[in-house]
């Protein structure tokens, strides 16, 4: 039986970050992800905002870890080579009655330790964001707010964790966790059992199921769906900051936020649903997003729509993060109920958990730990000289596969070859951006399938959209058959 010092359950941003932070210590670390790829749940589908920290109730773990996490992003983005911009956040008020509400947010932020918050009037708002609706009369400005690519961050954490010695297993759903009677745990993942001195529960919408197996301090997670629209990057220059709304009579506001890739996110809705995996979008939800986003952005260009998506937040009935060891399960650590501002808090949660685990296991520091991970150099962000140099080194850089995002064959091959690399078309899409642009893989799909088949050494009939049974084709009509599926 495999023995680890620490088993992490769940390969979202918190799990992968915790894996990386644990490799700062001399510990054998394994991470198990049930889905075909890491970053498949909430970490993939959220607002991609690094929150300033004025929203969470003072005194909560959400408030505390939000503010600590936010401050970590500059260093982290440098170490892991991920896109991060401190572009500021704005909360719009659409009537004078909203101004006291904005001031309340300022005070809440001050109590949480957020710096630089202030209420700005229409004129300054217009200067800052000329394309915001004329209906907005004032706003809260939070200069420390930022944006990050949540999946880039998660993949970077995982790559760095593996580089520093962690093992990451995918398609390895944890079906059982129990005490081994000697102070440790037995974890059944992907049909195999392994032993762990400590367990970290980062199982997202399933975190309650995992916790409730080992602790009587039960927690309950409600899957809360949020639906989004994405608008093409040609509109990305319209807004600088992430723009929130104060709640109005119409309900909780939605966000209009530029992403680090210059697309614009509109959303989310918030709807409690029974099925933890139901990531479908609905006509009603999408309509609601548009109706409310139009308060911020008056003429949303429908011809700019690229796609829609939904994410499932793990809302905990305690309405706060659940972190650390329950009283009755020593060496079992929770990171449960990690909903917004979970992405912002994730780096801080990971450090906190890793330190707690290391302390309890009396682990020594790992002197070989290297915090640096390099991103795959992207053709689209290079200047002419960099492009020429990249092509001279690897001619695959001269072969553009995804024309909307200018992604080269070199990048696609590299994202498959990397640790915890892509195994599916969506895996390539989220790592290298091929297929994420305005044509949504209309042109590059077949080529990406070919490259995946070559790199993975499987027939094209085996290639999936996102792992599991999401096969892209039902069979072969002609051409060589290398013994694919029946």
């Amino acid at each position, binding site marked *: 039986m495999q023995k680890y010092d620490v088993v992490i359950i769940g390969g979202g941003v918190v799990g992968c970050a915790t894996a990386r932070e644990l490799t700062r210590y001399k510990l054998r670390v394994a991470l198990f992800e049930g889905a075909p790829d890491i970053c498949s749940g909430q970490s993939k589908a959220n607002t991609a905002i690094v929150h300033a920290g004025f929203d969470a109730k003072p005194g909560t773990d959400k408030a505390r870890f939000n503010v600590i996490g936010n401050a970590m992003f500059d260093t982290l983005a440098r170490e892991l080579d991920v896109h991060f911009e401190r572009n500021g956040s704005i909360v719009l008020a659409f009537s004078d009655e909203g101004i006291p509400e904005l001031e309340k947010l300022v005070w809440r932020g001050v109590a949480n330790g957020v710096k630089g918050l202030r209420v700005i009037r229409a004129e300054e708002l217009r200067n800052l964001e000329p394309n915001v609706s004329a209906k907005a009369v004032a706003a809260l400005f939070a200069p420390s707010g930022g944006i990050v690519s949540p999946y880039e961050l998660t993949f970077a954490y995982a790559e760095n964790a593996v580089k520093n010695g962690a093992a990451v297993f995918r398609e390895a759903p944890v079906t059982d966790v129990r005490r081994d009677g000697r102070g440790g745990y037995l974890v059944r993942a992907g049909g195999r059992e392994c032993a762990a001195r400590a367990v970290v529960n980062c199982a997202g919408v399933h975190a309650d199921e995992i916790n409730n197996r080992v602790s009587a301090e039960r927690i309950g997670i409600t899957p809360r769906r949020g639906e989004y629209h994405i608008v093409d990057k040609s509109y990305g220059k319209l807004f600088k900051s992430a723009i929130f709304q104060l709640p109005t009579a119409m309900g909780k506001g939605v966000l209009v936020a530029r992403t680090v890739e210059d697309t614009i996110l509109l959303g989310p809705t918030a709807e409690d649903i029974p099925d933890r995996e139901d990531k479908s979008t609905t006509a009603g939800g999408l309509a609601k997003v548009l109706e409310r986003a139009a308060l911020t952005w008056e003429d949303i260009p429908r011809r700019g729509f690229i796609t829609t998506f939904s994410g499932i937040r793990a809302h905990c009935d305690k309405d706060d993060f659940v972190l650390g060891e329950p009283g009755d399960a020593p060496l079992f650590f929770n990171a449960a109920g990690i909903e917004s501002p979970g992405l912002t808090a994730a780096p801080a949660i990971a450090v906190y958990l890793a330190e707690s685990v290391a302390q309890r296991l009396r682990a020594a520091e790992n002197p070989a730990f290297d915090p640096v991970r390099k991103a795959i150099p992207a053709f689209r962000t290079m200047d002419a000289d960099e492009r020429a140099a990249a092509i001279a080194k690897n001619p695959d850089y001269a072969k553009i596969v995804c024309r909307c995002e200018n992604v080269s064959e070199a990048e696609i091959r590299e994202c498959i070859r990397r640790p915890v690399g892509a195994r599916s078309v969506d895996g390539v899409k989220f790592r290298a951006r091929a297929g994420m642009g305005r044509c*949504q893989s209309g042109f590059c*799909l077949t080529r990406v399938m070919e490259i995946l088949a070559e790199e993975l050494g499987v027939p094209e009939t085996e290639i999936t959209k996102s792992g599991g049974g999401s096969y892209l084709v039902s069979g072969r009509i002609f051409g060589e058959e290398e013994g694919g599926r029946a």
Partner: protein
Amino acid sequence: MREREVGVLVIGGGPAGLAAGIAAKEAGCARVLVVDREDAPGGILKQCIHNGFGLQAFGEELTGTEYAERYIEKAFAAGVEVACGTMAIDLTGGRVATIVSRARGLETVRAGAVVLAMGCRERPRGALATPGSRCAGVYTAGNAQKLVNMKGLMPGKRVVILGSGDIGLIMARRMTFMGARVLACVELMPYSAGLTRNIVQCLDDFGIPLLLSHTVVDIKGRERLEGVSVAAVDETLSPIPGTERELACDTLLLSVGLLPENELSSTAGVRLSPATGGAEVDENLQTAVPGVFSCGNVLHVHDLVDFVSEEAARAGKAAARYAAGETRPRGTVPVEAGSGVGGIVPQFLGEQIEGDVKLMFRTRGIYKKARVVAERGGREIYSKREMILVPGEMVGVTLKKDALGSGREPVRVRIEV
């Protein structure tokens, strides 16, 4: 970085680019370079193994691949340089392009004139914002066509087609030939966007129902598509509650419109028409950027490739003349789309016209026993009675040089019922 100079640079080696390249060469341009991002020229015709091409251009019925082959052979015979696996990644208003290829790396191309012939792309699912699951099994019709015809891979076995554009109709027949069951072709509008002959030959002949004024309102399936909900729509194109029905299927093909691929044109400062999604051009196919011409589906989405070739040849010839020093600015006399007329090309005319001028457009709806009328300064300069006009088929209006006359008076085209 390598640099080279050419007389005419053609971006895109599909039917438009090839015809433009050949015409530029025939017009006397010594160095004509056609770049194409794919590994072989021919563009979308490479995957069009069905017939119906060339009736207008050659008076015979060819497959798409045969049609392309004729132009490819002609281009090589004429001495047009065709660089495949080569993508234009930048274009300036000064007609300097950056191209990249595995064979030659990055290159700067300075061109006397440029012909934009990048074609179009299919509207994806996201553009419709169709709700539901993002499972596998949802393809644009063109992508499915590529899988089947070029890769020998079968997208699925039980198929619903959303949208009745020509590629969708063609794929209804192709998937049926390949052993799939096509349950229905679902069209939002009360009429099809495709050619009548395709509805007859690809749907009717195989008993595939065409559900007009219907749409897909939900997409179901966790990993692979399991079914779609189809509902009728009202006059505002909104789904009518209570009319939903479930169709169990593993494949949904989308044929919901084509969008000219003008991202590169925009970087060069080319002005686009909101009505066509393509450049605003004059009768010589010149855009607002001097020396930059546009033709084929990147200019406006055509119904027949024969018209693409004809239009592209005019663009190629005009580009060669520009490169040879016969420069003149784009015309500024407006061509206006009147009642019933969709995006019209060209949008402008010169004050002095050299010959007959061909206008092309699509109607905004179905018109029976209607007249297509062109007027200038209160004079009727064209009138033709048509039995039926449908948006799926382009209307061509050839204005005689003499009837057109000259001057700054705009030309207006309308449908008279």
